[in-house]
Every structure is written in C-alpha cells, then in structure tokens.
C-alpha cells in the first residue's frame, strides 16, 4: 500500500521537475513544478472528439493503457514491504501487463488509419522489442543472484556484500535508467518536443487523442516515470527502517528527475536508423551483467 501511495505522490512532481530542470539549464525560469498536473486537470474537464474512421478500440485504448500502468504499479514493493500484489514471478507479470498497455496504444494508433501514426507505432514497437530483453535479463540476473523470483523478495535479499555486487548495482541502475528512457520515449531515443513527421516516435501515436483520453495518457507517462524511479530506489533501499527509506525514495526520485532533465538538455537524439542498434547494444550490455552474475555465483550450466 505504501509504495502505491508514494509512487502516486512522486508522479505528481516528476514531469514538473524534468521541465523545470530543462528550463533552468537553458537559462529560463520555467513553469511551476505542478504545471503539468494542472494541464492534465484541464484536459480531464474537456470532452473527447472521436474520428469517424476509428472503431471502439480507439475509445477504450487509453483507459486500458492507464489501467495497465496502475496494475503494474501495484506490483512494485517498497523495501521490505510487499506491493499490493505480490507472488512468485511477478516481474514477468509486470513486464507483460505493461506490454498489454503498449499493445493497445499501438493498435489504437493503427486504428486511426493515418500512415503517420502507423509509422510511429511501428517504431515504438521496434524499440520496445529491443529493450525487452534488457529488462528480462536484468531481472533474471538479479533473481539468479538472490535466488528468489518475486520482486519484493529479490529486493529484500539484495545485499551488497562483495564489490562485484556494487558494480552490478551500478550497472543495473544504468540499465534501468536507459530502459526508462526507451519506454517513455525520451532523449536520446526520441525527442518529445519534435513534431516533425520523420522524427516522431511516441508523440505521433497520440496525435489524434483529445480531452479526457489525452489526459489519461499524459498522466500514465508520469506514472511510468515514477514507477521506474521506484524500481531504481528499491535497489538501494535494502532493509532500512521506514523513517529512512521514505526520504531515500523521494530523494532518488528527485535525483532521477533532475538527471533525466539534464540528459535531455545536453544530448541530441541518435540518428533514426541507428537508434535500433543502440537499444540492442543496451541489451548486449545487460547480457554481460548476466554473465557477471554467473561469475559471482560460480555457477556454470
């Protein structure tokens, strides 16, 4: 329960901190931290316009997407406290529930019949496909290292004994940050600001959504950010008592948001036809983490 509340709290501020950081590094003052939430509330109050060429998929997809994100959040633990849903192998459930949401958003983009959105949908599908092995190999190696298969048990028993586990922890953080950037379509894999035809990936899929649906989708992005931030925070929480872990959690979320903001301000997006190989490189690096874990354990199949 506590992780759910904390993630909702963090998601309120997350995008605002990113935009604020970007503004400050550009030399402006920037909007307030709660501005994105105010934009979302404004969208919630409006009605949605549905195109005549779409079917019911287009109308239910945003809700399904939002629901999938909420369900994924329910699985995330908080240090030694379980998430609201916790069972063996729940990280697979986590990945595939997010996959269901992404699938629905992809087919709703195809549903509009616009070739634009189809192009964005295919790119989005490709990038997620290459980032998926990274996530699974990472969770798999963590599961191998700790011997458990449930999120909460993995993170609870993850202790940093030898220095190779420290290196693994650092590399796992790096991989998770990269996965976040891929999944949420941020730099350097996708530019949220660009609205040029040839360069959009995620933005183009939601071009036709409006009103309440658009608000749901934007808020779901915030939630996903906070969710991955919570995963990263879990790597470092261990089994400290509650009055320590909550500040650590919030601190890591804020740090993560600032880091994403800085990364967005200073990097350019990769060339579109090279994007795929960079994401695949991420998966290969994760493979090395896996081999490193096998080394630490001294287990060779």
């Amino acid at each position: 329960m506590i992780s759910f509340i904390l993630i909702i709290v963090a998601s309120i501020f997350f995008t605002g901190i990113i935009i604020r950081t970007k503004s400050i590094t550009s030399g402006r003052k920037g909007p307030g931290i709660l501005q994105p939430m105010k934009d979302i509330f404004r969208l919630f109050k409006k009605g949605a316009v549905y195109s005549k060429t779409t079917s019911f998929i287009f109308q239910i997809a945003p809700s399904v997407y939002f629901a999938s994100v909420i369900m994924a959040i329910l699985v995330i633990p908080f240090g030694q406290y379980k998430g609201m849903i916790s069972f063996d192998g729940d990280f697979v459930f986590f990945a595939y529930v997010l996959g269901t949401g992404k699938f629905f958003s992809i087919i709703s983009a195809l549903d509009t019949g616009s070739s634009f959105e189809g192009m964005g949908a295919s790119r989005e599908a490709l990038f997620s496909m290459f980032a998926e092995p990274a996530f699974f190999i990472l969770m798999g190696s963590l599961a191998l290292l700790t011997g458990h298969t449930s999120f909460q048990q993995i993170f609870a028993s993850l202790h940093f004994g030898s220095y190779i586990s420290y290196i693994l922890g650092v590399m796992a953080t790096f991989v998770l940050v990269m996965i976040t950037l891929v999944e949420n379509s941020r730099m350097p894999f996708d530019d949220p600001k660009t609205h040029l035809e040839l360069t959009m990936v995620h933005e183009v899929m939601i071009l036709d959504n409006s009103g309440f649906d658009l608000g749901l989708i934007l808020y779901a992005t915030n939630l996903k950010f906070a969710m991955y931030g919570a995963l990263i925070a879990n790597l470092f929480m261990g089994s400290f008592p509650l009055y320590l872990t909550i500040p650590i959690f919030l601190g890591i979320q804020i740090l993560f948001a600032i880091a994403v903001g800085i990364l967005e301000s200073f990097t350019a997006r990769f060339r579109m036809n090279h994007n795929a190989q960079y994401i695949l490189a991420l998966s290969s690096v994760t493979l090395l983490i896996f081999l490193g874990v096998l080394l630490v354990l001294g287990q060779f199949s």
Partner: protein
Amino acid sequence: MANVLLIIFTISLLYLGIAHRLFTYIKILAFQGVLLFGIAFIELIQINIANLTFVLLETIVFKAIAIPYFLNYVIKRNRITRDAEPYLPNFISLIIITLIIITTFVLSNAIADERISKIYFVVALSTLFTGLYIIVTRHKIITHVMGYLVIENGVFILSLAVGNEMPMLVNLGIMLDIFASVFLLGIFVNRIGDVLKDVDVDQLKNLKD
C-alpha cells in the same frame, strides 16, 4: 577487481561493433590499453619487480599512448575519411559480436579445468574472434591493422592467465606487440598511403592469377 575490469573490457568490444568513425576505434583501443594496464598490475603483482615495471610500462606506453597517437597521425597524414566502411551494417555486427561472446562463454564451460580462470579464457577468446571479425568485415586497410591490434589485446589477456607461473610468456607477448606496432604501423601504413592513393582494400586485388 580484475574481473570487473575484464567485464568492462568486454563491453568495449561491443562498442567496437557499433562504432562508426575511425577515431572512435582509436579511442576504444586506448581505453583497452588502460584497462590492460590495470589488469596486468593486479594480476602480476607477485612476479619480480623489474619484469613487472617492464610489462606495465609497455602496456601504458605502447598500447595506450604510442599506438593511438601513431594511428591518429597516419589517418591525418593519409587523409583517410572518417567512416569505418563496414561490409555489414553495424546492427548485424552488434548481434554477431554478442553471439561471439555467448558462444565463447558456452565453449569455456565445456573446458573443465580448474587451473585456468574461466573469465580470462572467455574474454581472451571473444576479443580474438572479435578482432578477426573486424578484419574480415571492414573495407579499409587501416581497420585491418586495428583489428590486428584487438587480436593482440586478446592474446595479451590470455598470456596474463598464466603470467604468474611463466612470466616469460607475458614478455614474449609484449615483444609480439612491439613487433606489430613498429613494423605494421611504422613502416607500411605510411608507405601504403603514399603509394596506393586510396586506402581501400579493393586496391589490393592486383596480385592474383
């Protein structure tokens, strides 16, 4: 700690697969030289001090400083273009190098030998095959030399695996390195730029039946 450096070394191999520009190759080679310096320092701390200083000096001076500087000079002097010109797209290179690493890992498990540390064997063999792959799939002559240098690094790691018992083998490996750098780079790539105007491997097709 040596294990960590070896894993970072393998990551640099992956980066070699997707690099586009020749200068990136040189930077990766210099970085690998620094990593090898660290690994040699940690592994060979027990052999006598003169031998150790010789090995460390050679790694840092040759692999990390002299060879990258010399490659830079050759590229600038012959006005070789920046691109690495692979035959296969970088995406496929990345997949193939990943497959190489996995295959060597599986192979090394078939070798049940307690004396040889498995990670050295895996990293050395993957470096060897990656170097061979780079030689085979790139157009330019200078990338052949760089692929050979990557193979050298792999052989050096393999010699470090037995370095403690037989330091002479590490010395021989270093001699190989010096021979390659002095000869391949020092005399021929300079001349090749002068005589063959375009540093493309297709130029080397005149001698055939």
